[in-house]
């Protein structure tokens, strides 16, 4: 019966091919949307693993998470170094890492931090950062040292020793280059599959130095009180930075955020309350997992809309198949009559139609998977470079297999409509069809 169905479909290969294409596109779309969503969620969750609390100037938790972990957007006014020290000295805090933001290197976010970042940051289920080449910067090393993420290094061909220049702001195109304060790359990070791959890390002192140098020309000569209208207005007093101190070395006046790790995670809510209630600084303490859940709540509607559209395309593909099978029934009536005359029962002809639908759906599923794999292969570097999303050429998971099975069953169910028509037709027509 299968060979017979294949021959029959081959005879109608143009229309059958279009049907297969429609099904394959819907399959690729459904699985693609799912993968994109999973990829985004995994990428986000992996990027924030290991951080118990993010403290930043008071703002929306999602905005703080996006800015501090993914380098998207900003955190508003900076928090004072005194607040950082207060936080670091809390008994429940195991470690605290200061974060400065607001610059970019050829479109990639630049993070000002200290050596503690590389020691404490964890990604993808607890893995520490490792180096592909060179070394991390340290408090007793040069101020102009920079460590670049794997993607930044591979895109621009950077290696330890290379000199880079950062730009002001977070856009990809900037006319305000800090070319008077270049950095020398000390190390290149190994790939993590997270936002870290797309970041450039510089020392706190280096980050401050380049803004101190730019303050003079940016100031309005007619209004000495005027401040630059960007996220770095907190750096106007760089000249007053005091010398180095054990632990963090340079101490900036203001920073943008602090990553906090706790000795005992059960204290997280207590510390969060303490931060939120601190009167001297308007701060927010964000639990990454809670902020992520909030983010998924916001994006959920768009995700559902995309899923709905993908399933609508699948439905259109199924309807296309039913139309194709039904439209050919009348022209195939004599064919069915001949088959009956040579011994095919109505049930076998019913099975022929269902087998044809099964072949079309299966071919659509296989072609859809091929399309998805090719699309993933082609778009992975682009999505990774632009959005930090890693889709990966994964093997198909249980949920994806379940989706494929569901589409296959839907194809078989849809074929019952023309199959039942054929069954009735072959019983009624018998062997005496007149065309």
């Amino acid at each position, binding site marked *: 019966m299968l060979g017979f169905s294949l021959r029959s479909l081959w005879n109608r290969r143009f229309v059958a091919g279009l049907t297969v294409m429609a099904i394959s596109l819907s399959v690729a779309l459904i699985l693609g949307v799912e993968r994109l969503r999973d990829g985004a969620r995994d990428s986000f969750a992996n990027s924030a693993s290991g951080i118990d609390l993010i403290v930043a100037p008071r703002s929306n938790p999602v905005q703080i998470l996006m800015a501090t972990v993914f380098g998207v957007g900003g955190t508003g006014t900076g928090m004072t170094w005194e607040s950082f020290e207060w936080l670091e000295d809390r008994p429940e805090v195991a470690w605290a890492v200061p974060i400065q933001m607001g610059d970019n290197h050829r479109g990639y976010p630049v993070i000002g931090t200290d050596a503690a970042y590389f020691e404490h940051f964890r990604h993808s289920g607890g893995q520490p950062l490792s180096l592909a080449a060179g070394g991390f910067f340290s408090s007793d090393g040069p101020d102009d040292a920079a460590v670049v993420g794997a993607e930044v290094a591979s895109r621009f061909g950077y290696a330890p020793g290379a000199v880079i220049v950062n730009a002001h702001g977070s856009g990809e195109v900037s006319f305000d280059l800090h070319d008077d304060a270049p950095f020398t790359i000390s190390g290149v990070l190994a790939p993590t599959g997270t936002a870290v791959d797309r970041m450039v890390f510089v020392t706190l002192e280096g980050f401050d130095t380049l803004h101190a140098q730019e303050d003079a020309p940016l100031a309005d000569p007619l209004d000495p009180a005027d401040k630059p209208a960007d996220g770095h207005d907190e750096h106007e007093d760089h000249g007053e930075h005091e010398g180095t101190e054990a632990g963090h070395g340079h101490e900036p006046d203001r920073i943008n955020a602090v990553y906090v790790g706790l000795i005992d995670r059960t204290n997280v809510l207590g510390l969060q309350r303490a931060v939120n209630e601190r009167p001297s600084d308007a701060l927010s303490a964000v639990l990454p997992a809670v902020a992520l859940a909030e983010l998924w709540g916001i994006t959920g509607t768009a995700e559902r809309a995309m899923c709905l559209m993908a399933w609508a395309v699948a439905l259109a593909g199924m309807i296309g198949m039913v139309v194709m099978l039904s439209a050919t029934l009348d022209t195939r009536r*004599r*064919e069915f009559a*001949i088959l009956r005359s040579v*011994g*095919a029962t109505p*049930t076998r002809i019913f099975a022929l139609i269902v087998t044809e639908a099964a072949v079309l759906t299966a071919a659509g599923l296989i072609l859809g998977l091929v399309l998805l794999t090719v699309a993933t292969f082609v778009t992975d570097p682009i999505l990774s470079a632009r959005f930090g999303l890693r889709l990966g050429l994964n093997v198909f998971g249980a949920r994806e297999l379940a989706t494929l099975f569901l589409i296959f069953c839907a194809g078989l169910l849809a074929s019952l409509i023309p199959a039942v028509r054929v069954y009735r037709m072959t019983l009624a027509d018998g*062997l*005496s069809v007149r065309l």
Partner: protein
Amino acid sequence: MFLHGPSGCGKSTLLSAIAGVVEVPKEAMRVADQDIAALRGSVRDRFRVDHIGMIFQVFNLIPWLSALENVLLPCTFSQRRRTRAGDDPAGTARRLLDELGLSDPSLTSKQAHELSVGQQQRVAAARALIGKPDLILADEPTSALDEAAKAAFVELLARECAEAGAALLFVSHDRGLERHFDRGVDFQDLNRRAA
């Protein structure tokens, strides 16, 4: 037997009744010593292909199968026909096609829709004959052929049926073909007697 009558007098309905496709009262119709009305569902379908070969007027073949594959169709669905076609059903099919004037291998491997009407009718005849069924029902198989081809086809068919030991019930409205048969029956006479 040659059964003739004008269009619409019920010839094709009679063939459908003999083939067990339309319902008839019990004991009204016996084919190969079997009361066709007593058989039900798939048993009747199997009986039909085991014992009856059919030739239609036009659109006789599955267009996307080759001539040879069309001939072999009854052997696909009937164990009895396959057994009676010998150890090599494909060889038997080729021999039948050869005897019916289609010996060229390029013709037998051609798809049915690429053959001329006359060639298609001969392939249909070979398909009805393969596996030596007891009865061949031919429903106006010559209506699409010209006069010379008609006579040649009927003679060929009659001879092959005789060799296969099959009864031939040939239905047509063209009385000119009656001379090729042992018996001729006017369907309108049958209707009058039944009334």
